[in-house]
């Protein structure tokens, strides 16, 4: 297909990467800054809340309802709504909107992660004389890490993916390449932008899979795609 040839040509031109203003590298840095800030903001809100709700076992219906409502609200709508408030359009509005979308997955997974910790373990920890805080951070948290990290990974991938939409409402980030391409009827550039954006999303997913493997205490199994095939022992 001709378009993919054009896309490769576009990506092969160093000027398209280093151009000041809207070169790929500048947009990539913007994209990562906005995404990083949004995820950090979401974590600051959702992690403590999720840990507290999960530890006390309160608010299960609330977290479920929140994640359901979150699915129904289009990201584009929220991005635009924040842009027309006094915050004004720009990185702040984008970050805030993306952070709001990152809260439900982190909150729900943290809550579920804490709730599904074996009650016997919690009981045993209490019986050993652990205080409420110790039970939370030394017994429940390590056991909840895999699910908590799943939430964080989902949120991060989603934020990196949706940050592209900021370009539709005059924001920065890698979506600009696609948007500009459509504006100039240059499908090579459109596809080039799509390749960069998709690659970044897949890369984010991979990084967080590895990160969650590193952070999970206890005996480790490699992430699925890295795990060597188990051979049957010779008889």
């Amino acid at each position, binding site marked *: *297909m001709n*378009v993919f040839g054009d896309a490769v040509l576009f990506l092969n031109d160093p000027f398209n990467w280093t151009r000041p203003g809207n070169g790929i590298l500048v947009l990539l840095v913007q994209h990562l800054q906005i995404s990083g800030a949004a995820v950090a903001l979401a974590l600051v809100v959702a992690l403590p809340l999720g840990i507290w709700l999960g530890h006390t076992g309160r608010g299960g219906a609330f977290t479920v309802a929140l994640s*359901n409502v979150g*699915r*129904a*609200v*289009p*990201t*584009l*709508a*929220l991005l*635009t*709504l924040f*842009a*027309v408030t006094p915050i004004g*359009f720009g990185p702040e509005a984008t970050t805030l909107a993306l952070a709001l979308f990152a809260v439900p997955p982190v909150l729900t997974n943290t809550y579920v992660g804490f709730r599904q910790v074996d009650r016997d373990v919690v009981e045993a920890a209490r019986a050993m004389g652990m205080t409420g805080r110790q039970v939370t951070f030394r017994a429940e948290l390590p056991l909840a890490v895999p699910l908590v990290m799943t939430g964080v990974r989902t949120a991060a*991938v989603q934020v*990196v*993916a*949706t940050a*592209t*939409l900021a*370009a*539709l*409402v*005059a924001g920065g980030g890698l*979506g600009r390449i*696609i*948007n500009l*391409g*459509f504006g100039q009827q240059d*499908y090579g550039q*459109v*596809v080039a*932008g*799509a*390749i960069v*954006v*998709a690659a970044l*999303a*897949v890369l984010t*997913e991979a990084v967080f899979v590895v990160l969650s493997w590193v952070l999970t205490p206890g005996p480790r199994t490699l992430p699925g795609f890295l795990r060597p095939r188990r051979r049957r022992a010779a008889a």
Partner: protein
Amino acid sequence: MNAAPNPWIDPSYVVDNWDTILSYTTQHVRLTVLAVVIGSLLALPMALVARRSRWFSGPVLGLSTLVYTIPSLAMFAFIAPFTGLSETTVLVGLVLYSLVVLVRNFLAGLQSVPADVVEAARGMGYGRGRLLLRVELPLALPSFVAGIRIATVSTVALVTVGVIVGQGGLGQLIVGGFNANFYRAPIVAGAVGCVVLALLLDAVVALVGRLATPWTRTTSRRRAGRRAATAGSAA
């Protein structure tokens, strides 16, 4: 600065632009319904094949995770060179996303059919086709409905991204308002319209699911009655 009044909610905007809003809503509904229906029609055979062979289910599930990771804007950008600035571009993207949710849920539903029931039906002389139509599909239906509900709600939100090719349903109102010097009334109308539409379509699917599975209600009532009976006898 004496700006013109720019209210968030403006009933006169809705009244004056009713025809425009209605046509965008129609497009939104059309795209959503078509995407979910086509997605379901494709997902069923895929789930059936995936259930039979692990050789097929591995790649299908892996590929669907990859599809879900690709940002929607990039997805439309990949498709646009082939189908142009048309509704088809949006539809193809939406079908791909809905497939991810649908295949997983359909597969889970089929796998949740109790083995004893299948065994019993076989023992009664059910052939493969009749087993599927009269036993497995009805038992898997609640799980199917759950998948279709999730797919519907997230598709409603995703349609808005179609603005990149000028076919975004209510998303056109949102971005149109943004581009018309941050005109708030259409932005709010589009955003609220999306959420209402998502809730409405979700309710419709849920209702159809309830009507299609009358036995789930009788069992739950009977079970509740039994629970009440045992509670009474225990007291």
